């Protein structure tokens, strides 16, 4: 007994001595941070992070191969401790969550039946899987099996459903999915996701310039989850109240139901949920990522500026808006008349965006009150220029400077700013676009007796929205088509009395496919008016170029005065200056500006992180996925599209009260149920076809 004890003690001692000497001799310097990081990991050695044990994960963090959020079961506190050890900003510690993009499931058609294979991975090896759609979910549940936390289950429709409360964002399901259908992303990554060629997108969602997930929000409306629909729209478009009122909805012209029936009234549904939130009396809280400590200046508070500021703020940057006008909103406040977008609605919407913690400075003009130099000195690392297109084109005809001559945006913005204009009794608006129609309808509301719209082509060629033209006809605007103004005639006081125009006839189609108007010799006609408003288009007002900052000379403009930019990244010729909206594209839709603002926010984020500002890979911008555009759609029974309720003509003309009204709930639900819930290829037909 004694000798056994002595022997073991001796052996143990010998081993100990050898090891302690060895540890001295074979000492390898190890970053002390590895031990510190490891202390803050969950120490479960679960392997959920993909590294072999917690010490391997800690080493990966220290060597920069893994983010501080590597541990999937660690608490947010643990993650921020790790970030603190590494001296990294905790912004990178934003939690990740899985979500499934394909909702095809069992409704998608099969190419073939292959009995016996039970894994997506194996199935995808055989001709890319049994489903017709080569990107869609196979539905055999590799993601379900891969999830160690029981967060992914196979839903009743044959596609996986993620339980957000259980998901820890470890990424196992994403790795298991052979189709890249289930993705693990942080909120910031989701906010900055852009349509790509391989995404499961319905035609409407491909067409929307803001890239809103339209089928998803209509589905939420169907389920009665109106606030959920609002949140879905807010992932892509912060100005849903405004867009729901003024968007010319290019999405609806690609609606699959529209091929066999009238398209779904997508925009009215957007307005319905947006108004629902506003009238519910409470705002849905909007989450922002942890602060990154980076500052961005947004110049111009139009739709592009507001959108850019909103997305930058939500991904954690500090944003300040600089606006030259007294109030925020840009063209949607000063260019769109109140009867289309009431001021209180816009105020409510902008307040919601500013509530995220965005500072705004009004009455300061870029290039005059401040410039690139002062922004840099104030610690802004990037600048977004969303100055819009506010300079009206001039006709270039004699007499244009007479009293009583106005330009479109100038008149609309002065009126929106509260100025009382002396417009006389009759007026002529020159132009056929939305601004021209807005001017005409505004003047009718200001009490003018007669308003003419003078356009050099015919009604068919008018670029204004059809609904706007119809409304202006109802309200009594008189159209003078095929008329090219040649001279403004004035009296001795220098005030306008007549507009002289030449009558035209349509000739051969030009490059844009519209028939070119040609003048008829000697057909000069006089139109008796007190006021002439020219609304034939706008370009950006480039006075900011006078900024004496030497860097300003590097900012190039195009020949249309728009800011030279890369259309995919919206970066200007100065690396830290980005642009979008009318200032980048020339006059365009509100929804284009909103989409552009988000795209610029992505580029600014890349720039601030010190990464290369590169276009989205396989970006779908302005393009369609060919296989998803059908010419016929089976299984449709035509059902009437919901008609937009509006004020009667008599009651609208004496005020600026909003003309278009919101759909009642039952109508909205009925309209939502007309949606086929399309995806890339599959959809829910009205009638099941064999």
């Amino acid at each position, binding site marked *: 007994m004694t000798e056994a004890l002595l*022997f073991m003690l001796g052996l143990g001692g010998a*081993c100990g001595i*050898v*090891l302690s000497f060895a*540890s001295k001799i074979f000492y390898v310097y190890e970053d002390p941070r590895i031990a510190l990081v490891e202390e803050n990991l969950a120490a479960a050695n679960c392997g959920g992070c993909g590294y072999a044990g917690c010490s*391997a994960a800690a080493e990966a963090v220290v060597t920069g191969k893994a983010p501080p959020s590597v541990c999937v079961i660690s608490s947010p506190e643990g993650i921020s401790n790790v970030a603190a050890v590494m001296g990294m900003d905790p912004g990178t510690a934003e939690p990740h969550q899985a979500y499934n993009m394909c909702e095809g499931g069992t409704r998608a058609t099969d190419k073939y039946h292959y009995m016996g294979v039970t*894994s997506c991975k194996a199935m995808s090896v055989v001709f890319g899987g049994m489903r017709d759609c080569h990107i869609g979910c196979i539905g055999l549940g590799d993601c379900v099996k891969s999830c160690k936390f029981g967060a992914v289950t196979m839903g009743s429709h044959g596609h996986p459903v993620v339980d957000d409360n259980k998901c820890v964002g470890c990424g196992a399901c994403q790795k298991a999915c052979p189709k890249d259908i289930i993705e693990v992303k942080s909120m910031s990554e989701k906010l900055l996701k852009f349509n790509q060629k391989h995404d499961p997108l319905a035609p409407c969602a491909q067409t929307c310039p803001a890239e809103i997930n339209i089928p998803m929000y209509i589905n939420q409306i169907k389920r009665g989850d109106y606030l959920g629909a609002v949140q879905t729209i807010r992932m892509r478009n912060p100005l849903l109240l405004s867009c729901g009122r003024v968007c010319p909805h290019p999405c609806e012209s690609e609606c699959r139901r529209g091929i066999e029936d009238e398209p779904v009234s997508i925009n009215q549904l957007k307005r319905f949920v947006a108004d629902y939130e506003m009238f519910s009396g409470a705002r849905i809280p909007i989450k922002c990522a942890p602060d990154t400590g980076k500052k961005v200046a947004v110049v111009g508070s139009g739709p592009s500026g507001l959108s850019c500021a909103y997305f930058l703020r939500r991904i954690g940057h500090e944003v300040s808006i600089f606006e030259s006008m007294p109030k925020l909103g840009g063209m949607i406040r000063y260019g769109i008349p109140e009867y289309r977008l009431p001021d209180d609605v816009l105020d409510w919407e902008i307040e919601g965006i500013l509530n995220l913690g965005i500072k705004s400075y009004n009455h300061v003009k870029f290039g005059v009150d401040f410039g690139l130099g002062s922004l840099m000195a104030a610690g802004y690392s990037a600048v977004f220029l969303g100055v819009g297109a506010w300079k009206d084109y001039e006709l270039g005809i004699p007499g244009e400077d007479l009293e009583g001559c106005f330009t479109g945006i100038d008149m609309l913005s002065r009126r929106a700013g509260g100025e009382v204009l002396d417009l006389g009794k009759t007026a002529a608006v020159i132009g056929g676009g939305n601004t021209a129609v807005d001017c005409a309808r505004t003047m009718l509301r200001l009490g003018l007796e007669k308003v003419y719209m003078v356009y050099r082509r015919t009604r068919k060629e008018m670029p204004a929205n059809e609904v706007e033209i119809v409304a202006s006809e109802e309200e009594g605007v008189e159209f003078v088509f095929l008329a090219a103004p040649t001279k403004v005639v004035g009296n001795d006081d220098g005030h306008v009395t007549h507009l002289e125009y030449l009558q035209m006839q349509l000739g051969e189609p030009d490059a844009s496919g519209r028939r070119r108007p040609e003048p008829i010799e000697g057909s000069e006609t006089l139109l008796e008016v007190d006021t002439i408003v020219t609304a034939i288009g706008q370009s950006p007002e480039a006075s900011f170029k006078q900024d004496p900052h030497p860097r300003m000379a590097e900012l190039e403009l195009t020949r249309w005065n728009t800011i030279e930019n890369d259309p995919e990244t919206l970066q200007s010729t100065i690396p830290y200056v980005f642009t979008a909206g009318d200032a980048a594209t020339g006059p365009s839709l509100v929804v284009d500006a909103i989409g552009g603002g988000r795209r610029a926010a992505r580029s600014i984020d890349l720039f601030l992180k010190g990464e290369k500002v590169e276009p989205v890979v396989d970006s779908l911008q302005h393009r369609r996925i060919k296989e998803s555009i059908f010419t016929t759609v089976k299984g449709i029974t035509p059902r009437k599209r919901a008609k937009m309720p509006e004020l009667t003509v008599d009651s609208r003309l004496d005020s600026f009260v909003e003309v278009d009204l919101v759909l009642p709930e039952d109508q909205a639900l009925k309209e939502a149920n007309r949606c086929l819930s399309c995806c890339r290829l599959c959809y829910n037909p009205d009638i099941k076809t064999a």
Partner: protein
Amino acid sequence: MTDFFVLAISCIFVNNILLAQFLGNCPFLGTSKKMETAVGMSMAVVFVLVMAGIITWMTDTYLLKPLNIEFLRTLSFILVIASLVQFVEMFLKKSIPGLYAGLGIFLPLITTNCAVMGACLINIKEEYTFLQAVVASFTYAIGFGLALVLFAGLRERINIARVPQPLQDTSLGLVTAGIIALSFYAFKGMV
């Protein structure tokens, strides 16, 4: 020479440490889900088992036997093997970082593994000479690696097959292991 060849065959196939002796079942089931892991584990076992075979043979021959305290064999082997692995780990980390990174966490995992321990005890029980002990340890480890890699290949396939719920994962793994073991019994009588 022939003797060593016979010994090698016997250790790899006939007396395969995993399938005939049924030692080291935990790594057999635990590290056989992925081929990558199985290969890493096999390499580590080859490395450790040879070292352990040598050191335990020496401990037994020069310490335990002369002192007549063979009853402390198991206990002292545990201590010696564990210290050895720690030592080797430190040595590799300093001198051959490439190999250290390759063996990864498998090295400390098999510190007190019953396959290693078992093989060392068999070496003593069979009264092998030093050279025989080295060859036996090495070939036992090769047999371990062979069985593990075979098994991992099978399990990777089973993973994508339709398996009834009660049999999934470890249960079917054990059944499979049993069937492979049966097939290894065909080597019985060869030596």
